[in-house]
């Protein structure tokens, strides 16, 4: 068990470091590669938390599709002078203050309010384990197509609207339109 705990703390530290590097690198492509490292480490954390399907989706959809899409657009735009510009606006200390205060507030709520209420300790095991273990693909599939069928369909509509919207936004305007 200590090996798994150590693995979790490695993933946590590595994801924080990659996120920090991703938002501070001057070269956008380097930023993207650090975000890739962040996504892979978060997928590892999902795996450790027992969410195998979500870890796979994280790698396939986030790292495989969304990030590659960002890289495509970045290379399409061709920003040669991007590395010569300052990466932050002049107001970045204010942004740092906002980010740090959010972390402090969330951390305070986490430690001060949630921990005494027993969220820090594992709940008592009440259910007898029957069938496939938690997080397995079949259970998620049954949930998705049972109680969550309507939200699932709505998400597919959202994706369809996004596809149509992206095509309409990004295509060349017809002359006179």
């Amino acid at each position, binding site marked *: 068990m200590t090996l*798994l705990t150590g693995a979790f703390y490695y993933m946590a530290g590595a994801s924080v470091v990659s*996120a920090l590097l991703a*938002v501070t690198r001057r070269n956008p492509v380097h*930023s993207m590669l650090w*975000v890739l490292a962040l996504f892979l480490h978060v997928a590892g954390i999902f795996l450790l938390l027992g969410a195998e399907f979500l870890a796979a989706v994280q790698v396939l959809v986030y790292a495989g599709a969304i990030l590659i899409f960002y890289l495509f657009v970045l290379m399409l735009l061709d920003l040669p002078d991007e590395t010569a510009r300052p990466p932050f606006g002049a107001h970045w200390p204010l942004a740092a203050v906002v980010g740090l205060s959010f972390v402090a507030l969330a951390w305070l709520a986490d430690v001060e309010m949630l921990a005494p209420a027993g969220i820090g300790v594992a709940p008592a095991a009440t259910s007898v384990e029957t069938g496939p273990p*938690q997080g397995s693909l079949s259970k998620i599939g049954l949930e998705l197509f049972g109680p969550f069928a309507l939200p699932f369909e709505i998400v597919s509509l959202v994706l369809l609207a996004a596809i149509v919207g*992206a095509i309409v936004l990004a295509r060349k305007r017809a002359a006179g339109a």
Partner: protein
Amino acid sequence: MIVPASTVLGLSAVLFGIGVFGFLARRNIILMLVSVEVMLNAVNLSLVGLGSHFDDLRGQILALFVIAVAAAEAGVGLGLVIALNRNKPGASVADLTQLKW
């Protein structure tokens, strides 16, 4: 669960704060969108952590929906970036000061 849920929530808070900083401080519109992805990942982490803590699959289902909406957001956001880039080359938000071209 190998670590307490409060540890996962703390990590999620730190990642979200980094995303907030990146979104507010970066001047490149693509990297601002990427910072939003970092924030969404932090939220997914807290959803999965709490779902694993309460032994409830709904955390993972919600995280799946968040991933789907993030994909939609990336598509529309980058479509907007391409449309803006056609009007005015570059990806800096400091250039976007006009309401109409």
